[in-house]
């Protein structure tokens, strides 16, 4: 409860950042919030199930594209609503197709899916609309994007908190531990996984939609960049996917680190990212904070013993 209160105060304080920050720090703030939302949403499903999804950017990109396509046609709130619905429909289709897969097959499928979505959008744009990119002209400044993302982050954390305390959250943890036991206890596996996968994907879609006005010019290779998916996995796993604030706490330092790396080592950036991904997935699947916890308890237990 105290933690929750502190979080509310922190969020309220963060809302004032645009009043003081210059354009560059505000840009960093938007980046952190965006990745914080993605990592928290990713962990909501992938934390308990341990299904490593690399489809994050497929939904993120769909959100951005929906805004690019509809910004001139519909009022902005309605555009966001349509984006959420697009995310929901795609999540349900993908979920029904993939959630029976496990382990590495799921990882590969979700990665392949992202490429497929990107290719489909590219094909459509080149052959039907005869342009590859699109311009997004919306009268939405960076401070508005910042506030929208902050609101989305607050909502995402609230949903994650609610899920962690609800029956459906317990169901997901039981499935993550042992799907056979889950079904023998009466857990409806497909429905549970599909529900949480969809919630998670809709949030990712909204994160992309809200950030679309930032780019002004959008094309598939920008908004469907697979690096984003890998980065989100690293952030969530590093921070601890089964803690409410873990993914967010992972997103902050890693976003800053990768900003710095991509600015200073643009040629080695992907290699570093790839190595870090492998290291974290294999070595610390429960996160640095959890590893710290277990180390701490080991040390203190030793200290108690005579």
């Amino acid at each position: 409860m105290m933690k929750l209160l502190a979080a509310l105060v922190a969020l309220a304080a963060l809302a004032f950042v645009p009043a003081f920050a210059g354009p560059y720090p505000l840009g960093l703030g938007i980046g952190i919030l965006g990745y914080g939302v993605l990592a928290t949403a990713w962990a909501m499903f992938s934390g308990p199930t341990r299904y490593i999804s690399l489809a994050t950017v497929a939904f993120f990109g769909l959100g951005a594209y929906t805004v690019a396509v509809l910004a001139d046609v519909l009022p902005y709130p309605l555009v966001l609503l349509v984006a959420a619905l697009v995310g929901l429909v795609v999540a349900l289709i993908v979920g029904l197709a993939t959630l029976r897969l496990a382990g590495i097959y799921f990882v590969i499928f979700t990665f392949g899916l992202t490429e497929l979505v990107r290719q489909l959008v590219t094909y459509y744009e080149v052959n039907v609309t005869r342009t590859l990119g699109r311009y997004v002209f919306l009268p939405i400044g960076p401070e508005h994007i910042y506030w929208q993302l902050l609101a989305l982050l607050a909502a995402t954390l609230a949903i994650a908190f609610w899920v962690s305390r609800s029956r459906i959250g317990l169901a997901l943890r039981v499935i993550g531990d042992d799907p056979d036991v889950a079904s023998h206890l009466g857990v409806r596996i497909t429905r549970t996984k599909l529900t949480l996968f969809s919630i998670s994907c809709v949030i990712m879609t909204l994160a992309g939609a809200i950030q679309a006005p930032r780019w002004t010019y959008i094309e598939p290779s920008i908004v469907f960049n697979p690096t984003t998916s890998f980065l989100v996995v690293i952030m969530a796993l590093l921070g601890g996917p089964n803690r409410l604030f873990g993914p967010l706490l992972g997103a902050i330092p890693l976003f800053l680190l990768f900003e710095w790396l991509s600015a200073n080592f643009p040629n080695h950036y992907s290699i570093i990212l790839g190595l870090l991904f492998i290291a974290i997935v294999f070595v610390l699947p429960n996160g640095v904070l959890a590893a710290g916890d277990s180390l701490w308890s080991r040390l203190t237990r030793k200290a108690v013993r005579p």
Partner: protein
Amino acid sequence: MSLLSLRGVTKSFGGLTAVNGLSFDLIAGETVGLLGPNGSGKTTALNLISGYLPVSDGIIALSGETISTIGPERIAHRGVARTFQLVRALPSLSVGENVLAALAFRKAPVWGRQAESHIERLLADVGLAGRAAQPADSLTYIDLKRMELARALASDPQLLLLDEWLAGLNPTELRAGIALITSLRQRGITILLVEHVMDAVRALCTRCIVMNAGSKIADGPTAEVLADAEVIRAYLGDDHA
């Protein structure tokens, strides 16, 4: 009235027929032993009843309604619960959450405040009073078995399937285990138990079914079945018959 009924139930794994034309009935309230040498198909039979595996042929019915065509979660909601031969705890959950997982997803779910007293009582019943907060993966093997039984009972079953639940207990634990199962029987739960501990079978089961190589070779009152020449041969080989 028969609670569970199997008719010509068969399960093949590729070329191997693990259960072959198995038929029997369980009357509500009975405690029945399912015996047979290793590999005779006992666990597979339980797996077919609980819906863990689909049948290759035959029909399984619970209170007259076919359950061999529906999935394990719906069979669980009809009132079938089980333990596994190799204990399957939910390792990242606490002991209490393991039990809560059964309470929360059964036909008439129990959740929140109300669940806490249920959990305490169920754990106390199996000798794990006050252990709810402990991580499940910190329990000893015997305590895991207890927890798994508490979890099965939390589902509020009409039919309980126990797969060698008493195996590996020391004499004191065995006595406590037998007393526990006896108390379940007195509550009216129908029990089908796979067991190798013959003292327990004699103490608990009024009736026994014996399988060998996938087929039923005996079915009747415990004393008679255990004296049956074919049963002895199945267990000990031809020399002893």
